[in-house]
């Protein structure tokens, strides 16, 4: 039987390599499948700059206009909280920074662990609220397919298992850490086949949106 | 490397975030004394099973200090049974023949059991005395 140490070594080694490979190849393919399709040049006389418009929208579309914020406050606010929470937990927890450092060679200062711990809790609670909203809100329930719930699960699992592993609740810690790594690898493997791709394609989408509008002199 | 730095500055000086085991232990002793008074129940704390940071054991013993009684037992190596400055709180330390500590306990009781003479020992003592009296007539 594979011992816990061997399991952890395998998970942090070959399994992580496979997951990263699938993730990187998948994302590259999906991005190129979009970019290579390309866009015909606009023959109309330009009023504004498409590139400036595109760049601007990439940034400004992160800030909702007041009316949309009022109409869909819950979606907007929970969206911000769990995205920021997820990235803070991922990018500023000291052991995670070690992981990025050994894989990419770059490093940055960490946040104190209690801050990360609190952020993780807030993220988990918000994600649960988001699921309830997706199940109860008329529009979201109408739009949601199996993939939306799968992606929700795959997003919350790393945070929950990470929290449990840190607080060592229940089963022996090496297994908890193993479960945490497995949940992350699952997230990476499924990533290119789901709407998680929005993490990359949103920049292209916002650019196109802004370029089309900017060409015509509209700040979209 | 410009020569060996002296060992002084290599000594690990625990930062001010000491793990703070001393404070909780004193509270545990406080509760034990309460139980001793209310229900007459004795408590023994084995310091060996607590992850004490370097220097914390000494700080604890300094906090407890020394009281009126300090007994010395020599059986299978020496042992010290010292009452702390808080009556009823005894520090029992067992050493082996090379006077290395093999166990240190905080006993909260009226008197540690080891101080009392044991029935078997008394019986043996009585037998030894009777033998002594039997063999010499000039009492």
């Amino acid at each position: 039987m594979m011992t816990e140490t061997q399991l952890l070594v395998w998970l942090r080694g070959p399994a992580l390599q496979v997951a990263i490979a699938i993730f990187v190849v998948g994302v590259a393919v999906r991005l190129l499948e979009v970019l290579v399709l390309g866009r015909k040049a606009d023959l109309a006389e330009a009023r504004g700059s498409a590139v400036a418009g595109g760049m601007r929208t990439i940034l400004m579309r992160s800030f909702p206009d007041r009316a949309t914020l009022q109409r869909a406050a819950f979606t907007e606010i929970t969206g911000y909280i769990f995205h920021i929470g997820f990235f803070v937990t991922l990018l500023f927890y000291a052991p995670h920074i070690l992981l990025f450092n050994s894989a990419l060679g770059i490093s940055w200062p960490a946040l104190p662990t209690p801050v990360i711990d609190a952020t993780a809790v807030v993220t988990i609670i918000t994600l649960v609220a988001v699921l309830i909203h997706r199940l109860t809100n008329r529009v979201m329930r109408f739009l949601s397919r199996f993939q939306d719930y799968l992606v929700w699960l795959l997003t919350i699992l790393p945070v929950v298992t990470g929290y449990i592993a840190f607080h060592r609740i229940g089963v022996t810690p090496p297994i908890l850490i193993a479960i945490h790594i497995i949940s992350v690898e699952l997230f990476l493997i499924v990533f290119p086949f789901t709407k998680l791709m929005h993490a990359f394609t949103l920049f292209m989408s916002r650019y196109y949106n802004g370029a089309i509008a900017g060409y015509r002199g509209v700040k979209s | 490397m410009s020569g060996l730095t002296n060992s002084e500055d290599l000594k690990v000086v625990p930062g001010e975030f000491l793990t703070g085991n001393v404070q909780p232990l004193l509270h545990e002793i406080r509760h034990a004394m309460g139980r001793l008074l209310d229900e007459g129940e004795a408590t023994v704390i084995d310091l060996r099973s607590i992850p004490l940071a370097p220097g914390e054991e000494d700080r604890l013993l300094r906090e407890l200090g020394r009281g009126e009684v300090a007994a010395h037992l020599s059986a299978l190596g020496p042992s010290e049974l010292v009452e702390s400055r808080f009556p009823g709180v005894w520090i029992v330390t067992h050493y082996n023949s090379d006077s290395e500590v093999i166990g240190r306990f905080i006993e909260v009781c009226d008197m540690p059991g080891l101080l009392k003479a044991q029935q078997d020992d008394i019986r043996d003592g009585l037998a030894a005395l009777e033998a002594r009296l039997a063999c010499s007539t000039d009492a």
Partner: protein
Amino acid sequence: MSASLERGIHAFKEAIDGPVASFFSSCVHCGLCAHACLFYTETGDPKYTPIHKLEPLRRVWKQEYTFWGRYARAFGLSKPVTDEELGEWETLVYDSCTMCGRCSMVCPVGNDIAYMIRRTREGMAAAGHAPEGLIGASRRAVTIGSPMGVKLPALEAQIRHLEQEAGLTIPVDLEGADYMCLLSSMEIMNFPEYIGAIARIFKQANVSWTISSEAFEATNSGIQIGVSEIAAELVQRVVDAAEKLQVKAVISPECGHAYMAIRWEGPNLIGKPFSFQVMHIMEVLDQLREEGRLKTTGKEKQRLTYHDPCQIARRGGVLEQPRNLLNIVAEDFVEMPEAGKMNWCCGAGGGVSANERADELRLRVFNRKKSQLDAVRAEGLVTACSNCRIYLEEGLEEYHMDIPVTGLTETIAEHLVEEGEGGER
């Protein structure tokens, strides 16, 4: 040859480009676009969620243009688009969408949903799922020259009428003029004052302009129904006429989709840049205002507000000009809430008004525009699109609100300094 599912799917395959693929890859089903669409906010029916209207195009993209989708299709795991589905989606893509582009402005990942609706209609039309009203309008536009069946004699009658009564000169087929004006059938039939207005303004500002007898129609049913060939044919007529008359610029009248068709889609439809400029009438008027060639007196007293036609403002980029113009002729001009690039649609654009089946829904969602007007307690409503204008009037009537609706050019013309009156030169 007749419309068919295959031709529809084929048109979908042609319609998918980088942006469409990027948009479909980015949608996270958050539902925010619904909150920007008046067809959802006023009915509360989730089927009107904008991104949902693109389901057929999405499935074609997934099955044809993604590795995973093709793989799933090969194993029969994916659901090809059926004719019944296109039938079902017809009312979503046509009746409940004016391509106003509000959803494209709020989508957090930046999906331009209106861009994709325009391309979805290419497939729907080719598959024979365009609404009756729009098919009729397109036929009339191609055969007669105007979706409302307006022929040259009708225009000439209006011109004679204006020349005799108002003593104006409306130059027709004047070669070498600077500007060639287009007119929408709606203006010729219902708001001929527009023609009088531009005649008087151009006379005062001595602008050399003309109307072409061969291509006076500005509207373009092709881009509403979603058949680029028809749209190209209609645009080509205007280009031929403009080149024949060697004008420097063509003026798009007070009509929303006409501006979109000629200014932004035109060159791309016919495949080459125009040899002349295209300006919306308000761009011309604002230019005249800046050059001081627009002399007006007196101001409208009542509380006026302005409705931004979507294809001119949000999708067209003409935003400041109407404000500049209104400020010189209105004392109490007040902006509606969310005015400008985020203004709400009148509900009639993008071919919805030509589609009788959608009338009941259109009037129902007009409630959104009503709440904007209530919020600002307007006594007068000005706009720059005759289609908006007539259906704003219909909506206001439906909701028993008597607010007069006027065209901006006409309002400017009413305040022109009269000839010889010696107004401040």
